[in-house]
């Protein structure tokens, strides 16, 4: 599998999928329900989203397990009711199901791992051991359920990214991707706790990441310079998944004003800046991924 994925990214720009949360909200996910709970309570709705992204041309599909560590689940009543192993296993199973039903080959299942939502000192009281234990537990469940690779994403603290990476590495030899999340500040790109891209570029591959990059926080346009910064500093394969602009409120409902075509044009520039793989994050839908797919196929 590792060889297969390496071969894939060597020969083409690989297309990942887009946002899950907003799709589930559109399907009726209620206030106070964690999205991962639907892996067990509304599996067909989750599988439908995966199927829509496969139809749109995505080749790597992320499991609906972003918040499925015990630390993150413990933060809500809806999450506390879930069993870590069951919710992760179901998450992987739903991508497998969508892949089989599509009849398509060359689709990869990415076991998705997001941050615990807690902070290391001085901001919070998270310990390296608790983080590592939680990530290892999630990774073990995803590994047992047969994911093809791991995608650690939206990491705002390099220490937590490393804990997740080590947790995965302790239970799996599959490819691991790590995406950090950065804000654009007057002085450059920084994470919430002040990590620079340079730090991730230095630390993550050394810790065993096969691919690195960034997702969330930034809109597609704001991410282009970040891609150049990464590419100028490393030869490691790169993945970027920007947000679809910022939502604006209209009659009490969030509206994403950015059109899929605009997003796709920015993503073309992200590819030219050196990305080996692209996809979407918050606010992106199968229409966005489809537009990117058209650009990637017809644009070259």
């Amino acid at each position, binding site marked *: 599998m590792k060889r297969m994925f390496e071969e894939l990214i060597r020969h083409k720009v690989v297309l990942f999928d887009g946002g899950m949360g*907003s799709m589930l*909200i559109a399907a009726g*996910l*209620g*206030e*106070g329900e964690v999205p991962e709970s639907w892996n067990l309570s509304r599996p067909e709705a989750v599988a439908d989203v995966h199927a829509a992204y496969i139809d749109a041309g995505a080749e790597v599909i992320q499991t609906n397990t972003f918040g499925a560590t015990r630390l993150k689940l413990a*933060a*809500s*009543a809806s*999450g506390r009711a879930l069993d870590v192993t069951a919710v992760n296993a179901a998450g992987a199973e739903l991508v497998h199901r969508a892949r089989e039903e599509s009849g398509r080959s060359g689709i990869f299942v990415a076991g998705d791992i997001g941050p615990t*939502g807690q*902070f290391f000192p*001085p*901001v919070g009281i998270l310990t390296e051991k608790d983080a590592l234990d939680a990530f290892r537990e999630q990774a073990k469940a995803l590994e047992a359920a047969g994911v093809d690779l791991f995608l650690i994403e939206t990491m705002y603290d390099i220490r937590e990214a490393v804990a997740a990476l080590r947790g995965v590495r302790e239970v799996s030899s599959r490819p691991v991707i790590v995406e950090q999340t950065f*804000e654009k*500040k*007057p*002085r*450059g790109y*920084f*994470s*919430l*706790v*002040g990590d620079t891209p340079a730090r991730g570029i230095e630390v993550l591959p050394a810790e065993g990441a096969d691919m690195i990059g960034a997702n969330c926080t930034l809109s597609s346009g704001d991410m282009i310079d970040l891609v150049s910064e990464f590419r100028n500093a490393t030869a490691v394969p790169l993945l970027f998944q920007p947000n679809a602009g910022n*939502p*604006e*409120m209209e009659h*009490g*409902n*969030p509206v994403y004003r950015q059109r899929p075509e605009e997003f796709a044009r920015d993503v073309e520039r992200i590819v030219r800046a050196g990305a080996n793989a692209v996809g979407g994050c918050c606010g992106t839908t199968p229409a966005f991924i489809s537009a990117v797919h058209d650009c990637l196929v017809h644009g070259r």
Partner: protein
Amino acid sequence: MNNLYEECAGAVLAGDSARAEELARKAMEEKLPPLEVIEKGFVKGIKEVGRLWEEGSLFLPELVMGAEAMKKAMAVIRPALEGGEDASNVQGRVVIGTIEGDIHDIGKTLVATMLSANGFEIADLGADVPVERFIEEAQRIDADCIAISALLTTTMNGQKRVVDALEERSMRQAVKVVVGGAPCSAEWAEEIGADGYAGDAVGAVRLLKGLIGRGA
């Protein structure tokens, strides 16, 4: 004396709680006017922390450590203020929380910390807070303001429900309402009839000083 004030500001800027506490004690032992120690010393430090945060020159850990140092110093100085001519130093009472259905705690806690560091009295209800809890707590502590965080487009309507509930109880005139969180905006605040919106913790301090601040 000026030098001591500079050291006070420096301790907050460095996020050095132990040093801030020690300097506050020293200032009290030297019988310096408490309000002046706060305003010319520690507040200068926390303002600089806020400025550097907005500029992107320091980040969450430094912001939190600066606010903690500020709180430590304030805890030492507060007894000297109470009963004295400076008793009005409390900027205002604020009930803060993340609305029900929403477990995002980080931004809200940060706003609470910065408000507290800037002299506001804070009742932090945590996350996933029902509409009723905001109202009960506001009544209990005779709050000047309710600050509601929502990080999800699915939960932000809860902010409106708090405003509506205050209206129903004829409490709306007595309590200001401010909102924050990623999907919120000044337009959203206006649409739901809230009194204001802030995009980050430093902005929230500015907003509340304008709305309910008592001098200083």
